[in-house]
């Protein structure tokens, strides 16, 4: 039996007892709409991938409350060190669907200039949503370093460092938590236990009883929270954030949730996720659970979801059309940003690439003179 009791706020009919979320009605509705935005973005990305308009996407269905709940406990002066499945956090903080779609299409207006795969976002505004790296766990000690810098620079910010259950097996998880424990860094670690790491259920990842317990070995207090309960995730994150801001060091949060889709658009989960498990978690869908709460406060009536969702879909579709109509990055983007200044050997290679394009023609991407 785990020493960590699963924290919940919302019961299945939306009751929240005497819980005070500290959120205004407008803020509650922003959380709700953010979850629907994640869903709309997700659904659209899947369709774009299936129809060949983009190459790849990562499903988010089922984990919207974890992402939005955690993001809602942050200020825009805080930093997010996300995993590739965390774009709900960016949407909550107001990153536009258009900026996100530029990345999905890898076009000239993409923040990373078409260099990264889809869903590997990077944003500086309106919150630091640090450039996503594919190698699992690499960002965990980096987040601790950024948090330590906040402490040394006397900043009042915290770093939210998010990863999956699989991520806890990485080297970065262990060194990151160890350093944060020793340094008492203003960091909040969010382990999203969504049941699977690609095809591997959590029992193949660890023999410990869940993931919260892993904090103990590093001297880091931990919270186990129901990841499909937006208010509970928000509360747990707020607690960790408050501890960090007060100078009391890091917190590990395990949010127990479930990945309702495949790992990615390249994956067929029906081969390894038992249907009964999916049915069980379908019952725990975070969206209707939050709706019941909103309804109890007079903020939601039957039909609101459809209306809001179709508004989100329209916004996302418009963003996708705009991103698709945007030109691809120019050839020079292969050669820029390797260093602040382009070294001579890279410049020569760029000039050769332009020269070949002029002489042998073919495919878009530029032409003319090498501009760097």
């Amino acid at each position, binding site marked *: 039996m785990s020493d960590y009791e699963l924290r919940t706020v919302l019961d299945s009919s939306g009751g929240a007892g005497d819980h005070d979320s500290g959120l205004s009605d407008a803020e509650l509705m922003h959380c709700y709409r953010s979850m629907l935005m994640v869903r709309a973005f997700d659904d659209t990305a899947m369709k774009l991938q299936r129809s060949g308009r983009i190459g790849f996407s990562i499903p988010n269905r089922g984990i919207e409350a974890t992402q939005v709940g955690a993001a809602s406990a942050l200020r825009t002066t805080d930093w997010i060190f996300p995993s590739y499945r965390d774009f709900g956090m960016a949407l909550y903080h107001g990153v536009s669907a258009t900026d996100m779609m530029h990345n999905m299409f890898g076009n000239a207006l993409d923040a990373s200039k078409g260099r990264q795969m889809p869903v590997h976002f990077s944003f500086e505004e309106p919150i630091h949503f640090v450039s996503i790296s*594919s*190698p699992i766990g690499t960002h965990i000690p980096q987040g601790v370093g950024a948090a330590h810098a906040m402490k040394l620079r006397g900043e009042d910010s915290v770093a939210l460092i998010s990863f999956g259950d699989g991520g806890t097996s990485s080297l970065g998880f262990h060194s990151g938590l160890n350093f944060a424990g020793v340094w008492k860094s203003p960091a909040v670690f969010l382990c999203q236990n969504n049941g699977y790491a690609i095809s*591997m259920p959590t029992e*193949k990842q660890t023999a410990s009883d869940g993931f919260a317990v892993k904090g103990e070995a590093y001297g880091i207090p931990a919270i186990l929270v129901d990841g499909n309960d937006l208010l509970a995730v928000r509360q747990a994150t707020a607690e960790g954030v408050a501890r960090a801001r007060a100078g009391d060091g890091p917190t590990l949060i395990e949010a127990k949730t479930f990945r309702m889709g495949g790992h990615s658009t390249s*994956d067929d989960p029906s081969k390894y996720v038992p249907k009964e498990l999916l049915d069980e978690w379908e019952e725990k869908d975070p969206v209707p659970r939050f709706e019941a709460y909103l309804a109890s406060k007079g903020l939601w009536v039957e039909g609101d979801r459809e209306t809001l969702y179709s508004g989100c879909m329209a916004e996302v579709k418009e963003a996708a059309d705009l991103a698709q109509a945007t030109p691809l990055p120019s050839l020079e983007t292969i050669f820029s940003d*390797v260093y602040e200044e382009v070294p001579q050997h890279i410049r020569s290679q760029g000039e050769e690439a332009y020269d070949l394009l002029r002489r042998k023609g073919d495919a878009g991407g530029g032409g003319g003179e090498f501009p760097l």
Partner: protein
Amino acid sequence: MAILTLLQAVNEGLKTAMRDDSNVLVFGEDVGPKGGVFLATEGLTSEFGEERCFDTPLSEDGIVGAAIGMAMNGLRPVAEIQFQDFIFPAFDQIVSEAAKLRYRSGGQYTAPMVIRTPYGGGIRGGLYHSQSGEAYFCHTPGLKVVTPSTPHDAKGLLIAAIQDPDPVLFLEPKALYRSVKGEVPEGSYTVDLSTTRTVREGDAVTVFCYGAMVPVCEKAAEQAEESGISVEVIDLRTLYPLDEQGVLAAAKKTGRVVTVHEAPRFCGYAAEISAIIAERAIEYMEAPVTRVTGFDTPFPNTLEHHYLPDHRRVLDAIERVHAF
């Protein structure tokens, strides 16, 4: 003989080695019931059971470190790293440990093991699902580095690697997984880990290549042939230790050399080929020993077709060395 894709040939190679030797086992992330993200290990768990083909936690350091220990103690581990881009947490285990164990123990302890991993571009994988890191590993005495470009070689080289007494990094060009098909003999056979393969003969220009660049160079050679330039294409296939005599003979034959790889140019594999020729066959050279490579930048996503050498770039180099 069956006609298989390169991916199916890898799968066949694993099954054959596992049938022949009960000490051979396969493990890595998602290789068990799912059969790997590319399905290279499909059907292994059902045929050989969870004891011989199994999933591991998400730690490349753990995967390779454990493989070393198993190999020391009598097993023949074949570890999969899901993408070569994710091998770096295991760099220490490979470079400091697997490659040096025999040397540092005076031969008392050895690590006969294989690390298989898909590498290279061509699947729109961006920075972290496209890299060709062979140069890092070819700089590691004690390790063998192998990369097939045909289904026949994929199976034969893989079985040879599994039987080899030393650690082998087996780089699988993922762009060729499903795009090349070829005849593959049934049952067990090996392809020698110390020879190159002559892909096509020619007498005017020699092109050295490996992995997914082999079909690219073949296409360039065919086009060169149309304009009257006869091109010899050599698939290096065992990158380290290299068949230097084979390379020198092929270079001397034409006196005009182009080496092609996807990886960045600076300190890339082609630099070694150029150096060997410069030191030992310069008097035979009629033209600058030339390289066609990826750029000295990280691997882009949208513009990967500009980053990867294609037949136009290779042809351009062939024409240049020919006209020199």
